[in-house]
């Protein structure tokens, strides 16, 4: 009987750092009541259904979650021919931001989109961080808003992040972008830091009329 452990780990490692992939693998084996040792191929169906139950703890975004499940499921001979779902992913995605969990979800969505566009791992991290900053600003200062993530194709390939809220607006944009600015919540680097991580950032705001931050980064 072939041991599927290596290929399962390989699939999980595409979605998680290796140490986390191993931890998920071990806990899924327990959940599926499978031996902690080698995973026989006929154990895969139980493994996949256990993974479907536990994966929401690790991947918030449903699309990415089903991609990850699909990657493991295709290790079963019966599913080997299945096409990966939406290899290019949606061109645009929106995440409503009202909670800390949704901040993570916005960031995760941006990272996956960045990966699909072809950004390097470093740029994916920068983009995920930038989106986390923007989404967190919405949560901290307004409490409700939206983050839109869009793939740009022309004139250059890249990613566009639009963070929208209908809060009080920013009274003095030049102040929050000033080098010496210190906010009450963070380290005063939120918007400034985000601008440095992206190629382009503009803020449209009016007191009482909300704020729209548009940030773009292009493939070099």
């Amino acid at each position, binding site marked *: 009987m072939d041991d599927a452990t290596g290929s399962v780990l390989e699939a999980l490692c595409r979605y998680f750092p290796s140490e986390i992939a191993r931890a998920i693998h071990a806990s899924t084996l327990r959940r599926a009541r499978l031996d902690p040792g080698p995973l026989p191929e006929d154990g895969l169906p139980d493994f996949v259904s256990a993974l479907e139950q536990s994966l929401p703890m690790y991947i918030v975004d449903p699309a990415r979650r089903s991609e990850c499940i699909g990657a493991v499921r295709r290790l079963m001979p019966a599913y080997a021919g299945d096409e990966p779902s939406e290899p290019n992913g949606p061109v645009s995605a929106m995440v409503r931001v009202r909670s800390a969990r949704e901040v*993570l979800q916005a*960031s995760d969505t941006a*990272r996956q989109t960045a990966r699909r566009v072809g950004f390097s791992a470093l740029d*994916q*991290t920068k983009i995920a961080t930038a989106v986390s900053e923007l989404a967190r600003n919405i949560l901290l200062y307004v409490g409700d808003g939206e983050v839109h993530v869009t793939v740009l194709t022309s004139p250059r390939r890249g990613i566009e992040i639009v963070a929208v809220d209908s809060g009080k607006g920013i009274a003095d944009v030049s102040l929050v972008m000033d080098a010496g600015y210190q906010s009450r919540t963070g*380290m005063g680097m939120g918007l400034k*830091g985000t601008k*440095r991580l992206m190629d382009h950032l503009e803020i449209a705001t009016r007191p009482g009329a909300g704020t729209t931050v548009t940030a773009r980064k292009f493939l070099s």
Partner: protein
Amino acid sequence: MDVRIPIIDLYSNLVVPIQGAIDDDAMARLQHDVTQRIQADGARGLVIDVSGVEFLDSFMTKNLRDLALTARLMGVSAVVSGLRPAVAITLVEMGLEIPGVKTTLNLERALELLLSLQEEEARALGEGEGDHG
């Protein structure tokens, strides 16, 4: 989804391995749990290992720093270990630092550093007593 971050006792140091993205609630609980454990266990050092963290925004960075500084205020040396290259590069590019907090490449070096700090401390205490005698 209510994941508590584990706190591991290792050679009278507390090790906190943070995995994945840190939820704000988990971070707040962690601050509470760690300070309680420092007092209850009489821990000598604290290592916050972030090798499993994929990114840190300014808010999460501030929380980490606050946790380390709180521990230090309680008299416990605190070290942040295992920042991934992409995370470190991103923090520097944003202009974020973790001032006042020692960082090491990995958990092993963090424990080595804590050990040497604790030896130094013990020596300083010993010399202090010698002066009086």
